[in-house]
């Protein structure tokens, strides 16, 4: 029974090539999108965890400089080892570009890491008597490198000398970049032409964007490099910890490496965001699958009816077609997976920069397990496909039966009631989650509820809205009016596709408004905050203050200090309180006492050191409001004091909680600093530059004007949101594809009507325009419904998701032009996608339709 039917099924592909192609395309798009995000996710996750991982096994402590102004020297290292601490291994790191024939070949700086491999190997090879450790290599897998790798770094030598390890993909990128500039010698060098060690690939995802080498090689390449830390191998007993602490000079501190909880939290949020991206794309793709399966079944409806007449049962028909879906999913998974991996590679630089900006991690290259990826993609796709196919297959069962009950008014009324019921359920769930949810994933569910509630409103009100629009069309335009009425009839048949379009349009409007608001807020904030004329970034004392004083330039040094509040790391930054800087401050909220034009008192209180300013990240992270008291250490003395929170400030892009305190609370001789802000007229500036150059400092290189800084910051901002823009367009495209599938089905249904209109003397072109009008009208109405829900979505994203994920919010900016842009883009995308089936239908001669219909 099954085999003859399967034979007929395969033979049917000859007549439904287009439908099959659409189904395969939609499945491949879904699988490739899913694979791409899974690959990016896994690679970023591996890189992220590698950021928190250590280069050698069993490291639980490290010795680092006690402050930003302190330096860990080679002498310190030698002294400590001489004192018997042989478990200490020196690490030096520097971020540099790679050069070939004097030309820079890297877009981003590469992290060069040097390890004292000889010390490490000698430590690993002797019995561990000194430390009460369990330094067995059972944990070696959790580290970046193993003993073999260290031996390779320490002892391997080639005709070009020693060896450095890096990820094969980074290696290949360097080779490719060298080829682009048509280098002859192909030798990788530093900026001052020192030849890098022989690069050797090592398949280890956690290597990320790093080049690992022996520490002596690193110092040979970059003699100015400093030691960044001393890793302590093995678990230390309390006695040993005490001994190390006693022996440590004042400028060094022992730090316990226990960031697991924080890492896991950040990784989860990171993972969740990417999975949300993947799921949005996948869900929209499933809408295409529903429509594509519908299209395929529609094309075979006639012979399926014959099969039923020949005695093949509904269950058999269902099972065989389900098998067909499984086979197609298998084919699509293989193709989609390969495409997805390529897509991930293509999107890699943009994704890397976005992730690095958002999460401040170095994203490298992931190890992809093809089998694992295939299993994940295949089962998710299969689950989705089977779910998406059930609806059209059930509809087919209805079509194969003689009575069509779906048109029955009572049934329609029931559906309307169910849809309103669902709307209430989604709205209520969304409301509850938005008000009481504490976790990001719950807020993402709330976002989905908002969108689904919108879908319900659309489904119930679609025909009513079309009816109202139809009333606006003058009776002198009979064809247009007829088309609008036909749209009403079509709205019932394109529900699923219109929902997909609605979801895409809503997320588009929501994301666009969010990004636009964020951009506007960031620009205004930066413009206001960047009140100085120039900035100099430097974390070493260059005598700039003295030079500035001699040139009459007003200069402010930004001091910083890192401390803890309620057990979590916070930043303490200095902030000048001169009138110019007072004006530059952008407040989110003020303490009640300073709210009514009482800002002068706020600054007076700030100068008197009675109060501090905190950023949104601090306020939201610790649930502190303006007017509350916080107990934080004094940045110079470390003494715990209570401070009034005078106000909460905007601080976009900063992942850390921050407290702004008066400049004179910081001790210039001990506090770290990294930036100087400069106010000067042109003459003063010119004299300042000359003075800088006289001291051997390149003014051009070190100084950056406010306008340049603003431009650079906004460029970084725009680059960060390229992915969002891309994703928006892809989602729209996918939704439009879904609509195109539905339209192909509909076109067969409306063929007799179009034939009739054409037989009345209406040209083929006019008929195509009318058809286009019909579909655009459907989309336009979906866009109208999507607008309020898009605005609501942007509100959720700004005030709930951003609050939870990044601890900052900003005012929602409702830009009519932005919404209009989404309208135009969406309608253009729809026009492009439906143009093919429309032109195809328009090219069919009228006579062939007449012959076929009659």
């Amino acid at each position, binding site marked *: 029974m099954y085999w003859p039917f399967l034979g007929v099924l395969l033979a049917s592909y000859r007549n439904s090539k287009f439908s099959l192609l659409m189904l395969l395309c939609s499945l491949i798009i879904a699988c490739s999108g899913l694979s791409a995000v899974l690959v990016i996710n896994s690679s970023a996750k591996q890189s992220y965890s590698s950021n928190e991982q250590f280069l050698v096994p069993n490291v639980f402590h490290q010795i680092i400089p006690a402050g930003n102004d302190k330096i860990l020297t080679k002498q310190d290292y030698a002294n400590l080892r001489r004192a018997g601490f042989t478990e200490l291994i020196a690490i030096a790191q520097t971020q540099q570009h790679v050069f070939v024939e004097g030309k820079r070949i890297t877009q981003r700086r590469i992290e060069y890491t040097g390890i004292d491999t000889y010390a490490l190997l000698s430590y690993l090879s002797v019995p561990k008597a000194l430390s009460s450790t369990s330094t067995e290599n059972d944990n070696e897998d959790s580290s970046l490198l193993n003993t073999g790798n260290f031996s390779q770094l320490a002892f391997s030598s080639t005709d070009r000398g020693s060896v450095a390890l890096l990820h094969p993909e980074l290696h290949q990128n360097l080779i490719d970049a060298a080829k682009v500039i048509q280098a002859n010698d192909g030798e990788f060098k530093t900026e001052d032409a020192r030849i890098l060690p022989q690069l050797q690939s090592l398949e280890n995802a956690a290597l990320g964007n790093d080049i690992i080498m022996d520490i002596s090689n690193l110092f040979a390449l970059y003699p100015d490099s400093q030691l960044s830390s001393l890793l302590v191998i093995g678990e230390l007993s309390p006695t040993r910890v005490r001994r190390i602490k006693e022996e440590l000079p004042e400028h060094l501190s022992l730090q316990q490496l226990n960031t697991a909880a924080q890492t896991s939290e950040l990784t989860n949020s990171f993972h969740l965001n990417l999975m949300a991206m993947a799921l949005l794309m996948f869900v929209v793709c499933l809408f295409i699958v529903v429509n594509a399966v519908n299209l395929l079944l529609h094309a075979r409806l006639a012979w399926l009816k014959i099969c039923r007449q020949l005695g093949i049962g509904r269950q058999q028909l269902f099972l065989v077609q389900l098998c067909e879906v499984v086979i197609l999913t298998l084919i699509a998974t293989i193709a989609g997976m390969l495409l997805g991996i390529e897509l991930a590679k293509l999107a890699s630089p943009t994704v890397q920069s976005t992730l690095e900006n958002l999460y401040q991690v170095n994203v490298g290259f992931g190890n992809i397990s093809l089998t694992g990826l295939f299993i994940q993609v295949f089962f998710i796709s299969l689950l989705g496909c089977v779910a998406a196919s059930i609806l059209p297959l059930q509809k087919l069962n209805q079509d194969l039966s003689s009575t069509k009950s779906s048109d029955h008014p009572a049934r329609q009324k029931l559906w309307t009631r169910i849809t309103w019921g669902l709307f209430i359920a989604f709205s209520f769930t969304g409301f509850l989650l938005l008000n009481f949810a504490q976790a990001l994933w719950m807020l993402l569910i709330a976002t989905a509820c908002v969108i689904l509630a919108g879908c319900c409103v659309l489904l119930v009100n679609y025909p009513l809205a079309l009816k109202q629009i139809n009333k606006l069309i003058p009776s002198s335009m*009979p064809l247009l009016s007829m088309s609008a009425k036909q749209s009403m009839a079509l709205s019932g048949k394109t529900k699923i596709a219109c929902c997909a379009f609605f979801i895409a349009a809503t997320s588009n409007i929501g994301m666009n408004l969010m990004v636009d608001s964020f951009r506007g807020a960031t620009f205004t904030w930066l413009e206001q905050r960047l009140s100085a004329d120039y900035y100099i970034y430097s974390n070493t004392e260059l005598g700039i203050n003295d030079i500035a004083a001699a040139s009459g330039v007003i200069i402010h040094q930004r001091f910083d200090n890192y401390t803890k509040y309620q057990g979590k790391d916070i930043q303490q930054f200095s902030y000048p309180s001169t009138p110019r800087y007072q004006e530059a401050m952008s407040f989110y909220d003020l303490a009640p006492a300073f709210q009514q034009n009482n800002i002068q008192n706020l600054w007076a209180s700030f100068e008197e050191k009675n109060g501090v300013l905190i950023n949104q990240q601090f306020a939201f992270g610790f649930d502190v409001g303006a007017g509350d008291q916080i107990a934080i250490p004094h940045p110079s003395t470390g003494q715990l004091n209570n401070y009034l929170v005078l106000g909460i400030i905007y601080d976009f892009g900063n992942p850390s909680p921050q407290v702004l305190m008066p400049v004179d609370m910081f001790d210039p001789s001990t506090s770290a600093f990294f930036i100087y802000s400069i106010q000067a007229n042109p003459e003063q500036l010119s004299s300042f530059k000359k003075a800088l150059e006289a001291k051997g400092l390149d003014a051009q290189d070190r100084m950056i004007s406010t306008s340049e800084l603003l431009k650079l910051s906004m460029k970084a901002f725009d680059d960060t949101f390229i992915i969002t823009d891309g994703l928006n367009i892809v989602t729209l495209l996918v939704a439009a594809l879904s609509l195109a599938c539905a339209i192909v089905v509909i076109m067969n249904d409306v063929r007799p009507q179009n034939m009739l209109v054409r037989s009345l*003397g209406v*040209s083929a072109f006019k008929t195509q325009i009318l058809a286009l009008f019909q579909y655009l009208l459907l989309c336009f109405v979906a866009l109208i419904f999507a607008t309020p829900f898009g605005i609501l979505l942007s509100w959720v994203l700004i005030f709930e998701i951003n609050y939870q994920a990044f601890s900052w919010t900003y005012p929602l900016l409702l830009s009519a032009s932005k919404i209009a842009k989404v309208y135009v883009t969406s309608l253009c995308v729809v026009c492009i996608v439906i143009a093919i089936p429309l032109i195809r239908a328009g090219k069919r001669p009228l006579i062939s339709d007449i012959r076929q219909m*009659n």
Partner: protein
Amino acid sequence: MISIDNISKSYTDAGETRVILNELSLSFEQGDSLSIQGASGSGKSTLLHLLAALDKPDSGKIMLQHEDCMLNLSTFSEKQADQYRKHHVGLIFQRFNLIDCISVWDNVKLPIQISKGTYGEESDAFLKELLSSLGVYQHRHKLPNRLSGGEQQRVAIARGLAHKPPLLLADEPTGNLDGKNSDSVSHLLVETCKAQNTALLMVTHSQKVARLTEQQWYLEDARLRAI
């Protein structure tokens, strides 16, 4: 009004050429009624399609008298063919004659609005009379799918004649109806055409229906013969 002069038409299917119409000639004037009978696949519908400028003959001419000049349908461009169908021809098919998303009245009104661009009181009165004479005026506000097959075909006749075309081409208009309905619809069709002074060319399998027309032709071996 229309004169068909030595037209031939053949189709090639699977490498085999089949002559459908062979040097066929026929002419008729406004107000005439003609029926064409023949076996399935004899070329009746093809002839109708040629007269509707939906298709072109391989050779020969189809001349249309338009005001004081004669136009050759076989040389019409697509645009000219659209104009010809808009103003000079009404078409009735066996099935799918009405647009189901608009009312009966709007269906009938549509050809007038398309051909004249306007719709006035005069047209309103004419349509009322036309629908009344066909016995479907009371259904004017209904959607087509609420009507019976016979009622739908009567509305289709009204739609075909609404813009007062000089020629009405009907392709088996009663093929889908039962005997009783077929009789009544075909009577109404012929009578209404006469009343409107519209030439009627009807393709039919039914001798009974064919006998209602003034001229009866039989298409056989690619040639027409009078009955």
